[in-house]
């Protein structure tokens, strides 16, 4: 049987290089299967993340022949025959080891999203929502947090310093999910504008193209969010309305100002490994 050449990036935060593994070609495999055979054979310490191996958990994201893909969902037989398969870690995140990157940025930003603030329930203590009113939110909740949308986003892919003030596509759909949630009473528009860097996105739709769940990130989340934020900031009627009418939605920014530190962009996710600043208390 023919062989397949896997060119896999090996290294750590100090640097690395591509290493070639020539493996027997086995019918019916996905890239992750071949990575697993490399681990069970020539490179037992080859680091990669994976969990479900069924496209549901979003752990095994990598750049395969230069494109962000889930390794478990990329069949070997759709890749160009006779050419090496290049497998590299996601570039936007710091390297931990080999194909594993430090994705804690995404978890740090997720901590800054004000959660659902539900309205009062019906008299029986439960809620009524129509299917049609939740379908947009359900689209965003299909997200498996593979972080490939974050990986391809120009704003942070080549601009590390933007990460401090930029939520990225994954969290923009989270914001839009909350904004469109029939039960929500919060208003996160000022937070989005001032702290989450929504304006930095220039809607190139790279995120939408790589989404394995086919979520229309740009069209259904980012563009509507931008419109809402613009409405909130510049619409004179809305501005007047806010001045005159008692507001039913209290903005997240108000809350942030009331509780300094709660939404501070510098908050760190708990370190995922030693070497970061651990709490030795």
């Amino acid at each position: 049987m023919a062989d397949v050449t896997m060119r896999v990036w090996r290294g750590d935060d100090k640097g690395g290089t591509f290493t070639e593994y020539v493996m027997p070609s086995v019918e019916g495999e996905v890239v992750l299967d071949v990575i697993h055979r490399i681990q069970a054979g020539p490179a037992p310490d080859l680091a990669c993340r994976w969990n479900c191996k069924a496209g549901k958990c979003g752990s095994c994201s990598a750049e395969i022949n230069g494109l962000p893909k889930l390794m478990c969902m990329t069949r070997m037989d759709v890749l160009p025959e006779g050419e090496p398969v290049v497998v590299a870690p996601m570039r936007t995140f710091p390297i931990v080891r080999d194909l594993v990157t430090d994705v804690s940025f995404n978890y740090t930003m997720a901590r800054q999203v004000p959660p659902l603030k539900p309205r009062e329930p019906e008299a029986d203590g439960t809620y009524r929502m129509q299917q049609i009113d939740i379908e947009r939110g359900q689209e965003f909740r299909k997200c498996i947090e593979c972080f490939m949308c974050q990986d391809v986003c120009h704003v942070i892919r080549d601009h590390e310093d933007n990460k401090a003030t930029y939520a990225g596509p994954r969290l923009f759909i989270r914001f839009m999910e909350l904004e469109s949630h029939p039960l929500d009473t919060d208003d996160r528009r000022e937070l989005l504008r001032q702290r989450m860097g929504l304006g930095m996105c220039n809607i190139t739709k790279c995120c939408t193209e790589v989404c394995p769940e086919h979520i229309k990130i740009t069209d259904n989340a980012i563009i509507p969010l931008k419109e809402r934020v613009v409405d909130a900031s510049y619409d004179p009627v809305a501005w007047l309305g806010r001045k005159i009418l008692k507001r039913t939605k209290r903005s997240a920014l108000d809350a942030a100002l009331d509780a300094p530190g709660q939404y501070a962009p510098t908050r760190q996710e708990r370190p995922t490994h030693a070497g970061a600043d651990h709490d030795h208390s």
Partner: protein
Amino acid sequence: MPGDTSHEPESHDYDVVVIGAGGAGLRAAIEARELGQRTALVCKSLLGKAHTVMAEGGAAAAMGNVWPEDNWKVHFRDTMRGGKMLNNWRMAQLHALEAPDRIYELERWGALFDRTKDGRILQRDFGGHRYARLAHVGDRTGLELIRTLQQRAIALDIDVFMECKILRLLKGPDGSVTTAVGYWRPSGEIVSFTGKAFVLATGSIGKSWLYTSNSWESTGDGHAMAAWAGADMIDMECVQFHPTGMVWPLSVRGILVTEGVRGDGGVLRNSEGRRFMFDYIPPMFAAETADTEEEGDRWYEDHINNRRPPELLPRDEVARSINSEVKAGRGTPHGGVYLDIATRRSAEEIRRRLPSMYHQFMELAGVDITSQPMEVGPTCHYMMGGVRVDAETEQTTVPGLFAAGEVAGGMHGANRLGGNSLSDLLVFGRRAGLAAAEFAQGRDATIGADPTEIAAVVAEAEAPLGRDSGESPYDLHHDLQQMMQELVGIIRTESELIRALDELDALSERARKLSVSGGRAYNPGWNLATDIPAMLTTSRLVAKGALERRESRGGHTREDYPLPDPEFGKVNLVQRIDVEGCYSLEPEPLLEMPAELKELFEEEPH
């Protein structure tokens, strides 16, 4: 203490330490945090990746939104019957009583369940449930559940320690658990957690079988750590196998093919093309099962005048038949049988009725189920047995140690109904968090573990890194999986179980000489080597329980004892490991069900 800590392992101190961040662990941590406890959530993977995401069908809760006739008593009865009455009745009762509240609570935290026409949470039918009762979101209910809990945990500012593997629980002088020792996977550095109460929520043990729907994480860490700490384990033989998991291609091995494929006309064939299920109709089901292909085929259109085709016999019957065909040499090249819907239904109809199946196999495996058969076989799916817990508090028999979710035993008896696992996580995750918080509040301070004990755990874990020559953990793991699949799989028999225990002795011996190359930092070879002790322990507990339970009940099927035995139906098999590492097993009577609940089963005999 900076300066003098360079050689001391990193340590963290909390009131409640939750190990595992699937549905049960998250729910437990949320509860403990809400009660004001300093709570740590420790997990082997990234947050939100746990096996809970794989659950598709839904969460069973008798909310009565579709069938107002439904109530907790019916759900309780369904659960007990499904579990062949081996369940802890009080757990099954609490589960049925509290599941609706746990679902509504998720909604307040942001979950978006599919709706009924009048705007309530929609509920779907599932095997074994008398009424449509599964709250769901399409076929990704597990993802919705874990994401909702994850976001709630974040909102409560719970400290999450991701990619951190716990190796052992250590006990203090009073016999209670005081410390969990483990390591960070990214760095390989040792870390320990001291706490006043510990909650195990580590999920399943399925990675000890070759064909499994479980992820790499399901290595039975919590089952083994509890057993090593001296906790009682119950009914470890009760493992659920799904009859039709994919065995080929590799890209989809272990992925389950829903019963709906057979319900919609799919049939099982052997390598000779024969619809072999007609050869395996047991007398007990003969009256209600078609005995010709013609009658079976007519049933799909006319349920009244025809009997069901034998492909729709209960799971254990189907699995047993597949097993027999493969053992008789009539299996596929990859050790399964063919599940054929392509020759039975039009391509258009298959795509319409089974859209996600069609897309999943097309995309992942290049298998077009409208034109070719699938290769399927029994696949390890769910662990009913586990750590024995008190129904109200999920406290194990070890003070300070609680367990919830798949790691805990009792709730599902000998067989779990679909939909009852997600609700189990919520109900008992919350109860475990609550009881752990109360236990912690009753304790003055945490007690650090004896450093020599920590050092011993560390030395054992590190040993494979220091050996220049030795066996690869991948080879050992593969041999374990192959052995468990063959000898402790869906159909068991005495001679094979005895052989399995011998093989486990040999594998344990080999495990002492593992060697891994590379360093400590994110080294999957080393990580696997540290998972193997737990896999060997849980495999042994399963094999011992399976040997002792000389009957067939629910997920446990003995070829040499094919029928349920009423005497075994009255007992849990309780196993313990003593401080010397010796295993013991005793049958203990089931908890007595109160008269008013017994009546529920007398109304309608099963």
